[in-house]
């Protein structure tokens, strides 16, 4: 689960890491009281979106007075922001963070994350804050320091001091910086985060070292032991469909194409999308109904897919192992009847009791297009989405 900047900063502040004074607003009418609360101009108006690349896209504006703040807020709030990471569709700005303007003396990069290949937590730091760390890692890896630390002991004081020294943080601020490093590493563990990134971690004239921007991603698998995040559970969903899928226990990610997919298993679901693309089509979604999906979940999955108006045809690809194909066929028949499906549906079933399952689909009279392997299924659904194959055509030999 991703957090917005203002949510991430609130967490950092609760860990004892200083942040600029700021106020969140979700309506333009809140602007003047938010400005009063935040302090004297200049103030910074920051769009609260999950995607990166916000600064370059005009999502962060310095306002020298009330009218500039109002203009910036009006331009951003409720409007679409297109950044390098959002794709051309952009993302709607639902909240703004208004922050005090501080004088930056130096900017650093800091993150704590799990190094998957070394299987240890690491602190990553650089003297070059404010830049994209991925680029820096490629071009000048020597500008980045990586410090692994023990998951039981946490980041030790001498490790924190060494990082602060390597960053050449001015001596009067070095001890405070080391303290902040230890707190961030501790907070990473206490919240089950998978990433805490402070970029820039800035030295300011007014307040010393503080977190000027922050990004936090939490481990979805650990949310069960963090009731404090319950309210945010669906907040970072990119669409109402994604939010809904989480509530019903289905993995769904919306995409830009026209072919809806329903698959059991995440790997097979990705492979099915790949197969559609290889055959000249574009998937409208990733959807994994899970290994033990029941009729209910299959029906809910269909509802999610047909709610997407871009979808011109649907591909169901199920490898029934423990889930038996005849049971799945029953679920598909019931689900399509209950959602009154009006677009072509290609079904590929394989696995336990497959013959019985295929016969049930053929006998249903619902005009399913069936396929026996993944490639055939992908070809048929791509053709159907282009309107080349009329609904109700059951190919010979099925």
């Amino acid at each position, binding site marked *: 689960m991703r957090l917005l900047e203002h949510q991430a900063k609130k967490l950092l502040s609760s860990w004892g890491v200083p942040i600029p004074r700021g106020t969140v607003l979700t309506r333009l009418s809140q602007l003047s009281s938010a400005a009063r609360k935040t302090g004297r101009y200049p103030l910074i108006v920051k769009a609260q979106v999950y*995607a990166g690349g916000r600064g370059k896209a005009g999502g962060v504006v310095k306002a020298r007075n009330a009218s500039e703040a109002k203009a910036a807020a009006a331009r951003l709030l409720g409007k679409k922001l297109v950044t390098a*990471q959002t*794709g051309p569709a952009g993302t709607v700005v639902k909240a703004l963070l208004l922050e005090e303007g501080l004088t930056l003396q130096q900017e650093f990069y800091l993150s704590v994350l*799990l190094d*998957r*290949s070394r*299987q*240890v*937590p690491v602190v990553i730091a650089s003297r070059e804050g404010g830049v994209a*760390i*991925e680029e820096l890692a490629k071009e000048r890896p020597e500008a980045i320091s990586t410090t692994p630390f*023990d*998951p*039981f002991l946490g980041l030790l004081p001498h490790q924190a001091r060494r990082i602060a020294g390597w960053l050449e943080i001015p001596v009067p601020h070095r001890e405070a910086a080391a303290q902040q490093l230890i707190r961030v590493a501790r907070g990473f*563990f206490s919240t*089950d985060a*998978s*990433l805490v990134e402070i970029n820039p971690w800035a030295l300011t004239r007014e307040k010393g070292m503080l977190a000027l921007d922050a990004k936090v991603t939490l*481990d*979805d*698998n*650990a949310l*069960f*032991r963090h009731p404090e995040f319950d309210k945010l559970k669906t907040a970072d969903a*990119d669409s109402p469909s994604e939010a809904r899928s989480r509530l019903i226990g289905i*993995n769904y*990610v919306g*995409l830009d194409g026209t072919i809806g997919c329903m*698959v*059991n*298993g*995440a*790997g*097979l*679901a*990705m*492979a*099915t*999308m*790949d*197969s*559609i*693309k*290889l055959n000249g089509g574009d*998937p409208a979604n*990733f959807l*994994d109904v899970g*290994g*033990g999906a029941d009729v209910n979940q299959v029906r809910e999955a269909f509802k999610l897919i047909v709610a997407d108006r871009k979808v011109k045809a649907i591909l169901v690809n199920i*490898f029934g*192992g*423990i889930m038996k194909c005849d049971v799945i066929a029953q679920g598909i028949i019931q689900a399509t009847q209950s959602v009154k499906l009006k677009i072509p549906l290609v079904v590929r079933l*394989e*696995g*336990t009791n497959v013959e019985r399952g295929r016969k049930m689909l053929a006998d249903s009279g619902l005009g399913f297009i069936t396929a026996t*392997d*993944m*490639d055939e299924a*992908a070809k048929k659904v791509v053709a159907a989405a282009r309107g080349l194959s009329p609904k109700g055509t059951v190919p010979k030999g099925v």
Partner: protein
Amino acid sequence: MSIYLDKSTRVLVQGITGRAGSFHAAQMREYGSQVVGGVTPGRGGTACEGIPIFDTVAEAVEKTQANATGIFVPAPFGADAVLEAVDAGLSLIVVITEGIPALDMLRVKSYLRGLSPKGTVPSIIGPNGPGVITPGQAKIGIMPGYIHRPGSIGLVSRSGTLTYEAVWQLTQLGLGQSTCVGIGGDSLPGTSFVEVLKAFEADPETKAIVMIGEIGGSAEEEAAAFIRAHVRKPVVAFVAGATAPAEKRMGHAGAVIAQGQGTHASKIQALQAAGVKIARNPAVIGRTMADAIL
């Protein structure tokens, strides 16, 4: 021969009284596995599907001489179940449980590193995978047995149903399997591609290897480096997620392109450079292998 398990392996099921645990304990036994006991705290002295239940893994090992376990406990108790099995001295620990927090697995890995100077470190397969099967002999996991057939292709995968898909393609082409290993879809798997590849390369019964990866992390790149240096047997790979968007988790906890790392292109490039035959289309994984060993 095979890797990890055969029909002589003595298997426990942790979480045997749960719905999945009891069902799969019976399925495993039916396939030929020696399921010698189950563990559910507080249910010791009873039985499930005719299999004796114990309160602790240590007690089960003492009474049954088990040397392997399949873990089906709920995610919040997953890491503890793994460590209980480690402490009881089991050499093969297969974790089916989905949803174990990453930091719990991190602590498990750290604990194991502390053990390693003393000698035997167990193989932990999973979490969040279908398990391990040696066709015709035994399985610890949830995969349907009948799609497999004994043979000489080793298969290692981060996925569940996509593994079944690949196995089924192989079986239909008459290409049987030596052992199939699902290392799981989490970001910190107990066993990596590299460790399984090493075992397959050393296994005289395995003639060729299918590897199924996906986006996220760098396990495929590390596997490619290992293959280049150490694997002489033919390797065929498919990597899922060519069409997956960045920064979105694709079902599996580990399947996410984060901060520009773990892209499909980078994995394919690394594997190709190591001489691995790539199946671009998931429908031709079996065919690609057939061509590679002709």
